């Protein structure tokens, strides 16, 4: 009995110890047997879209480790909108995170105002000439660089089934009427004319970027900035026109109800199997499209003009899959971090990763020399689409406003809400942020010295010392 009791106690203690063993301070601070901090960099981000992308990252990281002895741990899981939550949890759990792959949009909407990413202006000063002119502009706010782009630039575009268009003697539409005519022919033949990945709620804002760009004559960013500063209301005729432009797609049979229940994978599957003739997407889907074995030709086209008298306008920006440094990073590890950043931005390494993540070749040159094969779609995007583009609006307005937009757009399209009600709903979202969270658009103008100090690196490593000999 005594032995059994003793064994029970020992078992209970062992169980308790094993369960509590995981409750440490995280991987960041532990030292090895000699008392030195381990030579390690941890980079987090969303899951790789392509297998080749993961291979490329693994190769570059392994080569960096072989060259420098610094281990690189990649933690790539979940989706891009999980990143703020991961960062918060990591900070609370004191886990080591040195680099984060995050979109500039997320930085503008939440991470930047929260002071959770570091000001990279001085850190990257020695590496800015590795980027073509203008590329770092999307990653800067008021002269402060918050990240550097490390994935293909992206924009909104449409793809169509060329073979099907030839079969039904159709031409690429450039306006609402032509689009409606195309849609009727396709629908009569049992084909879904056009799809949007409507089940992914975040995606609904994208076609609005195009229609609002049309409605404002390419001044959508300026209009939204003025609205966020409180200089005007969101409920104005141009916003109504943008909403109505989207509703017109549904009313004219171009966009059908299938889109509301179809996510990105489903949309691509519909296109690949010839069930839908056209779809709207971000240019990041071109890499996935290229990797598919399709038995038809396809091409890209601009989102047609759906507002009378307007010109085509699309969304485009660099910095979608940018890399940033959390502001609470271990300052002692900054040298290792910048050494890795220098390594990543070398042409040969950037080319390896950027080409792999783009399904073969990037559409746009993000790091000098990191280019690939130029095909018809690449040429179209660079020469035709980008010149008609403005920055993504969800990189300008906050997350709560973006969620409000993404909620009202399908409601407007399906007729459950009027354009006026939708605009009022979005205005209310901003008003609530102002009253509850003291939201200020130009947060960088209201920061104290203490807040700036929290995001300023403690020292600036000399990145030129890391250049390849």
């Amino acid at each position, binding site marked *: 009995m005594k032995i059994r009791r003793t064994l029970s106690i020992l078992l209970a203690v062992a169980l*308790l110890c094993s369960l509590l063993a995981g409750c440490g301070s995280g991987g960041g601070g532990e030292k090895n047997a000699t008392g030195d901090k381990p030579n390690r960099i941890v980079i987090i981000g969303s899951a790789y879209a392509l297998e080749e992308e993961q291979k490329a990252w693994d190769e570059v990281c392994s080569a960096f480790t072989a060259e420098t002895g610094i281990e690189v741990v990649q933690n790539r899981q979940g989706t891009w909108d999980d990143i703020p939550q991961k960062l918060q949890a990591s900070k*609370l759990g004191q886990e080591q995170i040195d680099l984060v792959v995050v979109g500039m949009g997320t930085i503008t909407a939440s991470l930047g105002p929260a002071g959770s990413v570091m000001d990279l202006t001085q850190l990257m000063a020695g590496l800015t000439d590795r980027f073509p002119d203008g590329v770092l502009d999307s990653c800067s706010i008021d002269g402060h660089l918050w990240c550097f782009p490390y994935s293909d630039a992206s924009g909104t575009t449409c793809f169509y089934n060329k073979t099907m268009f030839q079969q039904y003697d159709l031409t690429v539409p450039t306006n609402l009427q032509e689009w409606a005519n195309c849609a009727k022919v396709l629908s009569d033949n049992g084909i879904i004319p056009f799809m949007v990945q409507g089940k992914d709620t975040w995606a609904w804002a994208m076609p609005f970027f195009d229609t609002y760009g049309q409605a404002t004559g390419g001044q959508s960013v300026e209009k939204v900035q003025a609205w966020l500063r409180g200089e005007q209301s969101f409920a104005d005729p141009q916003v109504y026109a943008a909403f109505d432009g989207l509703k017109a797609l549904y009313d004219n049979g171009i966009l059908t109800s*299938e889109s509301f229940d179809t996510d990105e994978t489903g949309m691509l599957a519909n296109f690949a199997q010839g069930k839908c003739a056209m779809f709207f997407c971000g240019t990041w889907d071109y890499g996935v499209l290229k990797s598919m074995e399709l038995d038809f030709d396809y091409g890209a086209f601009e989102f047609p003009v759906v507002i009378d008298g307007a010109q085509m306008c699309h969304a485009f920006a660099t910095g979608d899959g940018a890399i940033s440094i959390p502001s609470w990073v271990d300052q002692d590890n900054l040298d290792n971090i910048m050494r890795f950043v220098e390594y990543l931005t070398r042409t040969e390494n950037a080319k390896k990763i950027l080409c792999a993540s783009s399904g073969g070749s990037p559409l746009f040159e993000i790091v000098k020399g990191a280019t690939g094969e130029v095909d018809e779609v690449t040429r179209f995007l660079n020469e035709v689409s980008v010149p008609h583009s403005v920055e993504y609006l969800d990189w300008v307005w906050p997350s709560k406003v973006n969620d409000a937009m993404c909620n009202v757009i399908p409601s407007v399209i399906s007729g459950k809400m009027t354009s006026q009600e939708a605009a009022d709903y979005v205005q209310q979202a901003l008003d609530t942020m102002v009253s509850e969270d003291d939201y200020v658009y130009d947060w960088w103008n209201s920061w104290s010295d203490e807040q700036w100090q929290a995001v300023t690196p403690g020292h600036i490593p000399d990145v030129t010392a890391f250049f390849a000999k």
Partner: protein
Amino acid sequence: MTKLPRISKSTLHRRAFPYLMCLPAVILFTLFVILPFVEGCRVSFFKWDGFSNMKWVGLKNYANVMHDDVFWLAMKNTFVYAILVTVMKNVIALALAYVLARKFPLRTLFRTGIYMPVTLSYVVIGALWTWIYNPTFGLLNALLKALGLEHLIVGWLSDSRVALYSVVAVDVWKWIGYHMVLYLAGLQAISQDLYEAAALDGANGWQKFVNITIPQLNSTIVVNVLMSLTGAFASNFDIVNILTGGGPMHATEVSLTYIMTTAFKYNSMGKANAMSMILFLLVFLFGFAQLRIMSREDAYE
């Protein structure tokens, strides 16, 4: 002066032993339940984005929650979800247990098949049902078309009138096997003598079910209902997040998804914690009332 009776060492050990055995569980419960709850309660009185310093705001977070229409819509959805899921899980599970308690060919296969979804993770189930509900490739629409019921096809996850019920259906499908097993065990524990005696008294099937089966299963029913309710309140995040993300237009928004969004997307940890405290209070009251109403100490023998 009266001397205190000496307690022998063995008596002390005997008395302390049960407490020592409970100690690891109590420590873990305190660390991972009590302390986070207390901390959450504390944070609910601060304005905090999860990164910068906390700022004391008193009851402002609670006031903001009271004025937040989306939160109260999410609470309403949560209660509707909880009640529907509880009723459907228990009714269907009891019916299945009643049928599968009898012997017939392939009974084990059916039991296994019904239980299998319990073993699948929410991620797998979410991915599976996203495709079942898919308007172009989905099995559900294909089945309705095959049966000539195309007029019943709706946007299962995009139509705000049906989206919540579509999510409820998935949750019920996942868990009925689990509750069925509990009801099976309960049914098998009921003495056959009671049914024989009732038969002698001329009771029909329904009368036996109402007057013998249900009262004898009372404790099993209480456990199943309590587990369904608490599961519906506390574990609906995954299924809703994967299937709809709370949309369309908050039609499937439940309190947990909105709390998570408020905390980690809108960086409003204080308000999210205030919502959590209110949710805890409501669920506590609901669960307490359910236990008081449904628990009986009568003996039915």
